[in-house]
C-alpha cells in the first residue's frame, strides 16, 4: 500500500498479482482434486499389471479353489487363506456388530452431558490405539484366556493362537469405528422424530426400534459394511495372533492364515521368486477389489435404504 510509484500503477500490479495467484492456485487445487482419483486408478493398474504373470501361468479358478499353498513348488492355492479370512471376518462381525449398535444407541439416546462426552471420547481413544498394541496386549490377555480356559472348557486342544483369538481381538478393534459412525447417523436425526413417537405413547425402546433405527438405518448399515472392510483387510493383528499356518482351518481354535497375513509371512523370503511375488501382489489386488466392492455396495445400499426408509 505504501508505494512511492503511484496509486493507479501499483493497484494494477497488485490486481495482476492477485489474478496470477488465483490462476496458479486454481491449477494446483484442481490437480489436488484429480490426485485422489489418479491415486485410486494408479493403485489398481499397478497391482493388476504385476498380478498378470501369475494369472497368465496359473489358472484363476485353480488359484482360488486349490488348498495347496507351496510357492517353492509353484503351487499357489489361496483356499486356506480365503477360508481363514472368511472365518475371521464373519466371527468378528458376529461379535462386534451387536455390541457396536447397542453401545451406539447408549451414547446417542441414553447417555447425557458429561457421561456422554466421556464415553464417546473413550471410544475415540480406543479407535486411535495402534493395532500392533492390541496384538501385543492380546498376547498376554486373550491368548492365555483362549488357550487355557476357553478351549479346554469346550474340550478343544489349542495353544491360544488361532482363528478365534484373532476374531475376538478384531471385534474389539473394529467396534469403536462402527460405533462412531452409527452415533453420527443417530445424532443427525431431527428431535421431532423422537418427540412425535414418544408423544403418541411409545416407550423409549419402541421409539428407538421402530423409528430411530429405521431412520438411521442407511447410516448404520454402511457403518457395518465399512467395518466389514476393516476386518477383512486387517493385517497386523492376524499376523501376530493367527499362528500363520497355511492349511484350511477345521475349527475356530485352529491356526490358519488370512489373505493379508499371507503377504506378511511370505513376502520377506519370497521376494526373489518372480511368480511368488506376483502371487502375493495378486493377494493385494484381491483385497483391494473386495474392499472396494464393499464400499461401492455400501453406497448403493445406503441410497436404496434412504429412499425406502424416508421419514
Amino acid at each position, binding site marked *: 500500500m505504501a508505494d512511492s510509484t503511484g496509486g493507479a500503477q501499483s493497484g494494477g500490479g497488485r490486481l495482476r498479482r492477485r489474478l496470477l495467484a488465483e490462476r496458479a492456485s486454481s491449477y494446483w487445487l484442481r490437480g489436488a482434486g484429480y490426485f485422489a482419483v489418479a491415486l485410486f486408478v494408479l493403485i489398481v493398474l499397478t497391482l493388476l499389471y504385476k498380478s498378470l504373470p501369475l494369472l497368465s501361468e496359473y489358472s484363476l479358478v485353480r488359484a482360488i479353489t486349490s488348498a495347496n499353498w507351496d510357492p517353492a513348488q509353484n503351487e499357489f492355492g489361496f483356499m486356506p487363506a480365503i477360508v481363514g479370512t472368511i472365518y475371521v471376518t464373519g466371527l468378528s462381525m458376529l461379535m462386534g456388530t451387536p455390541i*457396536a449398535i447397542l453401545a451406539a444407541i447408549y451414547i446417542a439416546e441414553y447417555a447425557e452431558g458429561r457421561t456422554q462426552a466421556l464415553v464417546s471420547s473413550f471410544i475415540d481413544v480406543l479407535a486411535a490405539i495402534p493395532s500392533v*498394541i492390541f496384538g501385543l496386549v492380546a498376547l498376554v490377555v486373550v491368548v492365555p484366556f483362549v488357550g487355557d480356559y476357553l478351549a479346554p472348557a469346550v474340550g478343544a486342544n489349542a495353544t491360544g493362537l488361532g482363528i478365534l483369538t484373532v476374531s475376538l481381538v478384531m471385534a474389539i478393534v473394529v467396534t469403536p469405528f462402527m460405533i462412531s459412525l452409527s452415533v453420527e447417523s443417530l445424532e443427525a436425526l431431527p428431535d421431532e422424530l423422537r418427540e412425535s413417537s414418544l408423544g403418541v405413547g411409545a416407550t423409549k425402546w419402541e421409539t428407538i426400534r421402530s423409528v430411530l433405527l429405521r431412520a438411521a438405518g442407511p447410516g448404520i448399515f454402511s457403518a457395518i459394511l465399512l467395518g466389514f472392510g476393516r476386518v477383512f483387510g486387517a*493385517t497386523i493383528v492376524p499376523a501376530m495372533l493367527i499362528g500363520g499356518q497355511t492349511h484350511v482351518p477345521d475349527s475356530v481354535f485352529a491356526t490358519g492364515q488370512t489373505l493379508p497375513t499371507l503377504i506378511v509371512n511370505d513376502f520377506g523370503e519370497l521376494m526373489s521368486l518372480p511368480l511368488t511375488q506376483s502371487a502375493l*501382489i495378486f493377494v493385494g489386488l484381491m483385497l483391494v477389489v473386495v474392499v472396494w466392492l464393499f464400499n461401492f455396495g455400501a453406497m448403493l445400499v445406503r441410497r436404496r435404504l434412504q429412499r425406502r426408509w424416508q421419514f
Partner: protein
Amino acid sequence: MDRYAKQRLVGALVRGAAALVVAVMVLVVAVTVYRGGRVFLTNPSVVVTPPGSRYMLEAEGGFLHAVLGSIFIVGPATVVSAVLAVSTATYLQSDYSSERFSEVVNMFLNVLWGTPPIVYGVFVLTVIIAIGARTSLFFGIVAIAVFQYPIMTRYTDEALRSAPGTVREATYGLGATRFESAIMTARAALPGIVAGVIMGFARGIGDAATVLFTAGRSTRMPGGPFEPATTLPVLIFDQAMSFNAEVRSHAYAASFVLIVVVLGLILLSKLLAGRYARFAPGGRHS
C-alpha cells in the same frame, strides 16, 4: 414380558454394551501402561540408546533407531499429506469444482479411506521393485503419506464444511478472488484442520502394515533418506515375535512410548477442536 420390562431390559443391555467397550479400552491402556511402564521405568535409557548389532537376538542396546525412524518417516509424510489433503478438501469445498465432480472425488476418497493399509504397502513395494530401488526411509514416507492422505482429507473436508458460510459471502462481497476467499475460509476452519492433521499424524505413527515392506525392517540407526529404516509399530511387531524374553519385554516399553504419544496427540487434537467450537465466528457454542 410387558413393554416396560422390555424397556428396562434394553436399557440394561445398551449400558452393558457401552460399559464393555469402555472396559476393554481401559484394559488395553492399563495393560500397556502397567507392563510397558514397568520395563520403561526400570530402564528408561532403552528408548534413547542406539541398538547394538545383535539387537534382535540378544537385546543389545535400545531402540532409538525406531523412535528416530518414526519421527523421520511420519513427520515429512504428514507435511506432504497435509498439503495435499488441505488442497483437495479446498478444491471440493470451494467454488472450484462442480457438485457432481465433488461427489465423484468424494466417492474415491471414501474408497481410499477404507483401503487396507497393507495394500498401500504392497503398492509402494511394487513401485520400488518396478524402478529397481530398495526399501528405504524415503519409500516409508511415501507409503505413510499415501495412507494418511484420505484420512486427513476427510477431517479437513469436515472442518471446512462446518466453517461459517458467512466468511465466504463476506470475502466475495469485498471483491476477493476465489483463492483469497478459500484462504479466509481455511483460516476460519484452521483449528479444525490442525486437529485433523494431528489425527492423521496419530494414525500414521501407529500404522505398521504400510511401512513393513517399504521402509525395511532395519535394526540399525537410519542412515539417510535412501537407507533402510524402521518405525516403532514395526519394531513392536518384530519384538513381539522374538524368542528372546528381554527383546519381548522391550516390546512393552516401546508400546508404552507409542501409546503415550498417540494419547497425547488425541488430547491435543481434542483441545484444538474444543477451542475451535468456542472461538469460530458464528460457530457452535458449547
